[in-house]
Every structure is written in structure tokens, then in C-alpha cells.
């Protein structure tokens, strides 16, 4: 006698208990602390903060620990937490001119005021596994110190703007719409697109950007400037009548300078793509700038060549990895009711096809 499967609840509890065991791993190996993750897996922490849209290195580290290192799962944990947080207000726009830069490079000028600052980059490391790192307890030799960069490092695009060679970007005083508080509709303006890109999946945004480089909506980018460092976050307090500093965040900012031969509406000039991401995340910031530029085709009067990166619906609807992974993985949930109806349909269509073949053969 067939008995329908019961006990879903117990199965779930048992699965969770097993998961907790697996998360901890071998008890003979020391447990990782949140501080260790925050300090030693800082780029993973940065990615989780960026895609989770919440700047909190300790929470991001906790999420990474809880997610067993699955960064998309960690992003999801952060997002679900973020959505329950009350909002007290909005900060003033951060001033990246005043960034205390750890890294600042320009590909468009050999040298520039403030200089090129290489900073803590993998760029020129030879990718050879460093077996010395496998031996624990060795502190690195201290890196040489230089005088701090000046308080204000001008943006490279400012120099081009002085000559009127680059498209000016208007200062917007309006409060941008909030992607996480209003439903997305189209056409989406640039602030919304940038919000979607900065929290978009790094892999997706990278691939979209790469596709523009390979010819699907090519927009000839130069990295005008890439900078990484700390900026102050300030908020106006109406009761006080002035802004107070809430703290500081590490950001990566990329401005691309793109060739532009002009259109019916715009003179020949350089144009910009913009990327701004939480934490040290330059792959993401550069990718974001390229995709941002690709989606600006309409306002610049360029042709839509049908490239995926030019299609804002395509990019914005598919860049979010929490949405994507949820929907993708939901197909492992039971679908047997729908499958049954398909099964019956296919059987019926096959029976009809077979019957008509038999009839044809008979005729």
C-alpha cells in the first residue's frame, strides 16, 4: 500500500543540524573568527558588502562564515538583514575628491598632480603559488612608508573638462529614486542603473563589460582614473543646522574616458562611464563603468546596435544574483503537478501522432 511521503518538518530540522556540523568542519581544526575573515579575506568581505548593499565589514564576515564561503549566499543573508533595518535618513553625497587614496592610477596620463599611486595591488604579482603562506605564523615584512597623498586629489576628468573635451555631467540636486524601495520601471534613469550595477553580480557585470570590449556595443574606454581609499560619510542634521561625520567607508571609483565622435545632438568629445563600489573592488568598478557607458547610448544619440550591454531591461533584470540564484534554484522544488500535466499532454500528443501514422500506413 502506498503512503504519501510525510515528515517534511523533521527532514528540514535534520538537514539544518547536518549543515551546522558541516559548516564547522573538523573540530580538530581551530574555528575561524569573524575578525580573521574581516582582516584576511577582505576582498571577499568587500564583495559581499557591495552586492549586499550594506557597508558593515563585521556583518559581511559573519555572513561569509555562516554561508560557508558561498559569497552569493552571504550576499543574500546581508540583503535579507538589510531590508529589516529602519532608515533614519540619507547621507550627503560622498566627496571622492577628498578620498584618502590607497591607490590611484590613470591610464590616460603618464603623470598627473598627486601622482600615480600603485597601492596594494595584485597587478604585478607573478601568479605563482606562494608556499610560504602555507606555513602559518609568519608576519610579512613591513611595507616601506611614503608621505601621505595630498588631502584633495583632483579627478583626471577635471583636467579634460577644463578644456571642454569631455561631456559635462550636471550636478543633480534631486534625491535619486531608491531601487530597493520602489519597483523598477523602464526606462530607468542613470541613478537607478548605477544602483543596479553597483549591487549587481560581479561576474555578470564583468561579462557584460567584456562583451562590449569584444565588439557587442564597443565604446572605446580608457581608464581615466581608478582610485581606492577612504571617504568620510556625512549627514545633515536639521536640528543642528550642519552636517556631522558618521564614519568612513572604503570605496573604489572608476571613471572611464570614452571616445565619442559626436552625434546629431552632441559634438565630438570624450564621454564618461562611471563605477563606484563598496570596498576594494576594482574589477567590479571598471566593469560597472563600461556597462554604464554602454547603456548611455540613447542620451548620447548613439545607435543601438542590439548589443546585450546596451539593453537596460536585459542588464537590470538579470544583474542581481540574489534574484537570479533564487529563481534558478527554485526549479529543484517539487514541480510534479505541472510535470504531470505535461506528461499527460505529451502522452496524448504522441498517441494522436501514432494513430494518424497507423491510419496513413493503412491507407
Amino acid at each position: 500500500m502506498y503512503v504519501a511521503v510525510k515528515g517534511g518538518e523533521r527532514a528540514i530540522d535534520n538537514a539544518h543540524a547536518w549543515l551546522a556540523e558541516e559548516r564547522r568542519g573538523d573540530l580538530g581544526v581551530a574555528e575561524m573568527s569573524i575578525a580573521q575573515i574581516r582582516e584576511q579575506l577582505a576582498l571577499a568581505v568587500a564583495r559581499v558588502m557591495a552586492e549586499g548593499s550594506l557597508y558593515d565589514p563585521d556583518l559581511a564576515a559573519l555572513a561569509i562564515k555562516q554561508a560557508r564561503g558561498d559569497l552569493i549566499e552571504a550576499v543574500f543573508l546581508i540583503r535579507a538583514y538589510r531590508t529589516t533595518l529602519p532608515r533614519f535618513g540619507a547621507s550627503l553625497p560622498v566627496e571622492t575628491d577628498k578620498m584618502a587614496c590607497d591607490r590611484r592610477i590613470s591610464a590616460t596620463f603618464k603623470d598627473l598632480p598627486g601622482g600615480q599611486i600603485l597601492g596594494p595591488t595584485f597587478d604585478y604579482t607573478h601568479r605563482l603559488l606562494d608556499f610560504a603562506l602555507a606555513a602559518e605564523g609568519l608576519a610579512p615584512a613591513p611595507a616601506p612608508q611614503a608621505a601621505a597623498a595630498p588631502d584633495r586629489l583632483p579627478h583626471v576628468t577635471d583636467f579634460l573638462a577644463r578644456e571642454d573635451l569631455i561631456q559635462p555631467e550636471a550636478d543633480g540636486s534631486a534625491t535619486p529614486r531608491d531601487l530597493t524601495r520602489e519597483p523598477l520601471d523602464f526606462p530607468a534613469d542613470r541613478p537607478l542603473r548605477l544602483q543596479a550595477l553597483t549591487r549587481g553580480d560581479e561576474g555578470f557585470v564583468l561579462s557584460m563589460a567584456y562583451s562590449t570590449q569584444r565588439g557587442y556595443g564597443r565604446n572605446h574606454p580608457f581608464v581615466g582614473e581608478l582610485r581606492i581609499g577612504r571617504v568620510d560619510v556625512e549627514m545633515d542634521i536639521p536640528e543642528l543646522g550642519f552636517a556631522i561625520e558618521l564614519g568612513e567607508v572604503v570605496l573604489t571609483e572608476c571613471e572611464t574616458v570614452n571616445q565619442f565622435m559626436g552625434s546629431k545632438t552632441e559634438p565630438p568629445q570624450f564621454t564618461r562611464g562611471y563605477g563606484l563600489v563598496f570596498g576594494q573592488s576594482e574589477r567590479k568598478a571598471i566593469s560597472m563603468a563600461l556597462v554604464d557607458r554602454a547603456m548611455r547610448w540613447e542620451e548620447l544619440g548613439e545607435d543601438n546596435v542590439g548589443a546585450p550591454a546596451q539593453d537596460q531591461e536585459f542588464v537590470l533584470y538579470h544583474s542581481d544574483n540574489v534574484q537570479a540564484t533564487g529563481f534558478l534554484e527554485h526549479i529543484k522544488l517539487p514541480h510534479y503537478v505541472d510535470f504531470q500535466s505535461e506528461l499527460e499532454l505529451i502522452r496524448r500528443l504522441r498517441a494522436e501522432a501514432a494513430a494518424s501514422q497507423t491510419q496513413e500506413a493503412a491507407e
Partner: protein
Amino acid sequence: MNAYNFAYLDEQTKRMIRRAILKGVAVPGYQVPFASREMPMPYGWGTGGVQVTAACLVPEDRLKVIDQGADDTTNAVSIRKFFQKTAQVAVTEKTGEATIIQTRHRIPEQAMTEDQILVYQVPIPEPLRFLEPSEVETRKMHALEDYGLMHVKLYEDIARHGEIATAYAYPVKVEGRYVMDPSPIPKFDNPKLESSALQLFGAGREQRIYAVPPYTRVVSLDFEDHPFDPSKAPHPCALCGAEDSYLDEVITDDAGSRMFVCSDTDYCASRREDAA
């Protein structure tokens, strides 16, 4: 769990969802955009339904949650537990005792009553999406009541297969105006969309809410010479003998023997209780 508000969502979020639900009720079948929140369960696993249910629940409610018609499927168990924890509501597996039923992929066999609300989890709310991927374009089609694309698709099905080859998520027209996706219920369930209960549909990832008020006309799309046929497997239930219920096919041994049983577990169980 008391760190969270009643039914998990904060009041501002609930107000936003409630406003969307009311506009959905006012324009039956029209998909109202809403600022869906990240929920503590994945997109695609019922976040839309959960948000709608959370916005509708009162402490006195008695909630039933089904997936594939069954109360004991793991995701139904998980969602039911979520509301027990966050809203402290009573739960039931009895269709007749529930005041709100959240469902994925089925409409209960037992007729719903005036006092009940049925909340559907919806993966892709746009019935035209697989014919036209752009939201801008499909929104235009709904605005212009231009459903030519859908009729062409159904007609091509008939030309190729002799029948409309859609077995679930079978499109309907609501009150003579909007073409609507009834969520991936088997087409067997489509006639039950005309109900005395209020039906609400939530798509979290796609940020849409829509509604079918009680006694609203809901017509499955078809052609005069190929009328809609809500067919099901031609068997009675092997457990309760019902001939009028939607059946799951269960493979019972390695040789591929199979049996057909009710997908609505409460319907099947209460029939067997009545018979005993």
C-alpha cells in the same frame, strides 16, 4: 523572534503592499508593480506569496499552506513555520477551516467560501513574457489590449498539434479585459478561478501583485472550434477513489509500476476519513 514585527514585515512595507493589493482588486487581472522586499527565503520560493500573506494576516487567522496541493511538502512546511513563528497564527491542513490559504501550483479541490482568501505564489506573472521578453513591450500590449501575439501562439499550437499545447499556467482573460497568468496551476484548476473567495497573486522577484475578486469572470483562452478542455489523467484516485480530483502519478517500484493519487492531500484524507 519577537525582534521582528507582526508577520515579519515592518509597517511601512505592509502599507506599501496593502496599497498595491487594493489597486489589484480594483483592476482585476492587472499586474500592479510593488517594491518587493528581500525576504529571508530565496526568490522563486514564494517570496511574493509570503509578502501578500504577511500583509493580509490578522492574529485570528487560521493559515493553510500547500505546495503541489500538499501540506507536507518541504517548502509548504517551511513557509507555514515562518508564519507560526513571526505572526503566531493558528495553522491548519483542513481546507474548510482555513481563513487564508497560501498555495503554489494548485487550487484546493474543495470549493472555497466567501470568508476565505487564496494567495498564489507566482514565478513569472506576465502571461506574454515567453512570447515577448521585453517588459516595455508587454506593458504596451496590456495597455492597448493587444493580445494578438497570444492568439497567434495558441493558434499555431492547434495547427501543429491539433490542440493548445499548454498544460499548466494556462492563460485566462479576466472580466473581459486583462489576459492573466493564473500561476503554474494545471489547466484542470482553471475553472476554479471563478470563485466566491478572494484570490491574490504575489510575484516577489518580478515585483508584481494582482487579484481576482470573488465572482469575477475568468475565461480560459480558446477558440470556438477548439474549446478549452480542463483535462486530467483518466483514472480514479487509488487511495480515495475520487474521480473528480487532480492526480499525481507515483512510480511504485523499479519495474515502473505506477499509481494515481490525489494531489490535494487534505481532500484525499478527508474522503478516506468520511468513508471509514
